[in-house]
């Protein structure tokens, strides 16, 4: 979700020199009213996780703090994405790594000119194989270089990726890219300095979706309740992403679908009305009218930091 601020300047001749609602930087005699437009990207999928195209503005309803809002803008974005691909190259991945790399290449191949990606591998070290780039050839070569044998610094890797995406937030917002971490791993963290609380706390402050693909298996079955899965599920849920347990054979399809989902979002815009102003949390609820079978994914609120006019 991004916040676009539309600033209306009204020059008011005021003999007494009194101005109300002074904001930093405003000149005497001017009254500045800030009106914020709240943008909410929403992913709409069916029960099988496929993107639902063709929805229109009137199909949606949005509430802020349980107060219905009037949509002022509606776009179907094939938006750009800024993604950091984290590839687990620890020793336990060694016999699956080549297959995993081929699958990750499919994500790279689906990139559009608006997208940027960074390839990072992690075993007991987190190693950048490329910087953020839109050059598919560079990224493909970086994926091919992935190799490792050590322990698993899963939390370090996620924490680093969150830092990377936080550092480029302004650029991505200006160029209207959604930020995401796409993580492939097969087990629990064994060598990170960062702990789960710290990763979760950091993720709560960074506007980035976390998608985790787990190859963790026990007797052929996905380990859905191990420490790693529980943590990744919490992380994904908090961010608006997902944890999935693909089979190695169809890992490529998962990467493609992920790429598709990240790219296809409806972006709803509204000017908040009726809810309380001030520095506080505002809860957002989005529904598709008359389609209870649709699955929506969006961040459920934002924290306003300053004053704004309430209408």
């Amino acid at each position: 979700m991004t916040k676009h601020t539309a600033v209306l300047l009204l020059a008011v001749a005021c003999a007494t020199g009194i101005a109300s609602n002074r904001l930093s930087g405003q000149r005497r005699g001017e009254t500045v009213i800030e009106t914020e437009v709240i943008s909410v990207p929403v992913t709409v999928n069916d029960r099988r996780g496929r993107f639902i195209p063709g929805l229109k503005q009137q199909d949606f309803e949005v509430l802020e703090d349980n107060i219905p809002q009037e949509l002022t803008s509606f776009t179907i974005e094939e938006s750009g994405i800024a993604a950091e691909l984290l590839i687990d190259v620890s020793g336990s991945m060694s016999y699956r790594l080549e297959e995993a790399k081929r699958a990750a290449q499919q994500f790279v191949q689906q990139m559009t000119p608006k997208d940027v990606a960074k390839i990072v591998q992690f075993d007991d070290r987190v190693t950048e194989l490329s910087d953020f780039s839109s050059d598919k050839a560079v990224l493909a070569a970086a994926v091919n270089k992935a190799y490792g044998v050590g322990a698993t610094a899963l939390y370090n890797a996620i924490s680093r990726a969150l830092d990377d995406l936080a550092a480029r937030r302004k650029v991505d917002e200006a160029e209207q890219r959604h930020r995401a971490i796409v993580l492939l791993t097969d087990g629990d963290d064994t060598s990170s300095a960062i702990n789960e609380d710290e990763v979760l706390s950091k993720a709560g402050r960074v506007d980035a979706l976390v998608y985790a693909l787990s190859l963790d298996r026990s007797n052929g079955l996905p380990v859905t309740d191990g420490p790693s899965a529980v943590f990744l599920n919490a992380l994904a849920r908090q961010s608006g992403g997902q944890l999935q347990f693909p089979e190695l054979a169809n890992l490529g399809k998962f990467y493609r679908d992920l790429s598709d989902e990240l790219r296809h979002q409806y972006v709803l815009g509204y000017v908040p009305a009726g809810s309380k102003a001030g520095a506080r949390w505002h809860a957002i609820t989005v529904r598709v009218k008359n389609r209870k079978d649709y699955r929506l994914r969006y961040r459920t609120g934002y924290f306003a930091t300053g004053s704004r006019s309430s209408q």
Partner: protein
Amino acid sequence: MMFRRTGMVVAAVAVVLAVAAARGYAQAGAPSPTGTGTLVVVVDPPAALYVDGNLVTVDATRQEVPVPAGLHRVRIVHPDYQDLVRRIRIEPDKTATLSLSLPERGVRKPVAAPAGRGRGATAGRGAAGRGPSANDGLPGVTDPDLLTGIQFVKDGDFEPAVDTLTAVCRNLAGTPRYVGQQAVAFLYLGAALVELDRVDLARRAFALAQRADKNLVAAPTVFSRLTLATWADARTIPGSEEIDLDTLTIVPAPAAPEPTPPPAPAPENLEPERVIDPEAPFISEVEGALLLDFAIATTAAPCLGTLMINPAQQIVSWEPKGTACLPSFDVPFAEVRSPAAAPRGGVLLQFRSARQSVTLMPAPDADLLEPDREKLTLNDLPPSTRVHTRSALKRIFRALDRSWTDSISSLLVDVPVAELTENPADYDGGIVRTSGTLVTTSTRRGPYFVSDDNAKIQIAPAGVAATMMRSKASEWVGRELIVSGAFSRPAAISSKGGTASSSPFLITATKIEPADEVKYSGPARSLTLEQIVKDPPWNRELIRVIGKYRGANSFGDMPLDSRRNSGDWVIRDSVFSVWVTGRRPAGNGFELDSSNTRDVTSFWVAVTGRVEHRRGFVYMKAEKVELSPTEFKKDPGTPAIRIGGASVRQRPDIVHIDPSESVEISPDQQMLVQFTKPMDEKTLPGNVQLRYSDGTPAAFPYLLVTYYPERHSSVIIDPGTVLIPNKTIEVVFLPGVKDVDNQSLMGTDTAPGRVLKWRVKRR
């Protein structure tokens, strides 16, 4: 002589006793006045009194004693305090009153081990004594007049003490080789002035002592709490203030030039406008005892006081500086819960007994407690307050010898469930601790909630806590749990019902423990394994013992047929081992597995419980199991991860930095650095420095660099000071930083050393 302790404050009781022929310690040369007067002694709590060597009463609060005019020696004896001696002069037909509060003016005796059958000496407890030696263990005190002055102080003869010590201070001034003794003279002069209730002068005398000898300490085993508090307060006198040696008055400074106006704050600086003295020291240490100056909110202005944590006596004490404040208290360590940050700032001190909890705000931030001040949420607190609170918490944990769960992202805040549900935005993204009754519809799958006073919040166990919840949920339902973890609001995912289940905030819980497992059962006596094996206690007292976890007898430490139950496990130190029964090797956020090689070779545990005897074997019937980080750190055999298989010969390198140097950090940030090899933590102090890259002069008096082997060879660097926004802060590792193989850190070969940099954001 037998004493009877009443254990209560008794109402005033006047006891008139006839005293035999006057004896006194008349000063040499002074004529003895004739006639009689009345000596009134008021003491709290009740104690035994001697006047001029004669027992007056064994146990009372107020005595009226007719005595001959002249100088008399009063000695107050109480089993918990060292003998208190005072000299008091009685004028003919006059009444002189000596009023003493032992908690204020006395010096506590160290806590002695309780007597018992066949018991050996307990570790860490000093013997009770009748007072310090002549020099109070201060070597180098040779000046005879100084020794005389010190003796006057010990004898309670404070007026001549002041005269003598003032003269000594003057005589020793200006001679460098006597500066140490001069400092001692100022110290005792200040102590005498405190007893004469001339506290302001005492402060200045202490300040002069501190300036003369920065290493001088006022020992809590020698000086009263009031003296120690005044000693600590003396540090607030700025070094620039000149104090006259003779009169102990502040010398007025010469007219100063017009001060440079402070630079205007940056427009985006949203820190509330208030005067903060970042150099105001509120934490000090006095011979191993930690002293922290705190403020407490009242209906009027906040009141100040000092919290003292004394590891030698295992006591936490509070001493207010004025009236209308939280009354003083002394509690044993075991009664104090591990503190956390309070929801509105400060340190939340809670107790395992019925004693009410208290929020203590670091003294430099006392203005936040002014009654007309808007109450800030945790997210809105000034960075300086967060830094002070974090510094205080760290040092308290260290003094309590408890494991501090450092987090570089947030302070752990103790918050009631109702507060979390009513004001979730205030804690969003933070790490919280709360408690409530476990509620769930499915013990296996959840969802799980903790409920308290009609408020309910969802918890999502993660990591080890998830494993524990699955196995323990059926046992925990309906019981009060203490839950810690990250507090946030997950994204909404619509359910099959269609409406987005706008999930409320929840706690991703990484630690869960039943509240009744942290109940206070009285202090547990610490013993070694050798003591409980060779000389086991035969009563049912609570014992605490530390040993290395050895699994289910994985190494054959104990005879196989001595096991009582299938779940029993073994702890061992270098020679002795015992079975632990009644509880699994699990506790707050951990669970050890006897089939895991790392678990049975790496972890020390502290077991609290009672000793049992069966068929000639000793067993620990455990009531509580904790990890013992102190022993964990010290154990040389602990296999630590070496990143990339770094060998002995390889030099250590930095493998992870958090936050990374590409992000801007907040002014109250801590930084984490992970190394490829275990580091020698003794090489860190002094070899890790902070500075601003543009050369801005800055001191970091509270810089704390803490090594965490359990975080895979990491250090957390706490600047201890609010960083200056919009500047680049550098952490410099000097060549002295070495690993356990005595190899220096990569990149420290050339000046200035290995440098890491972060930009400090505006807000």
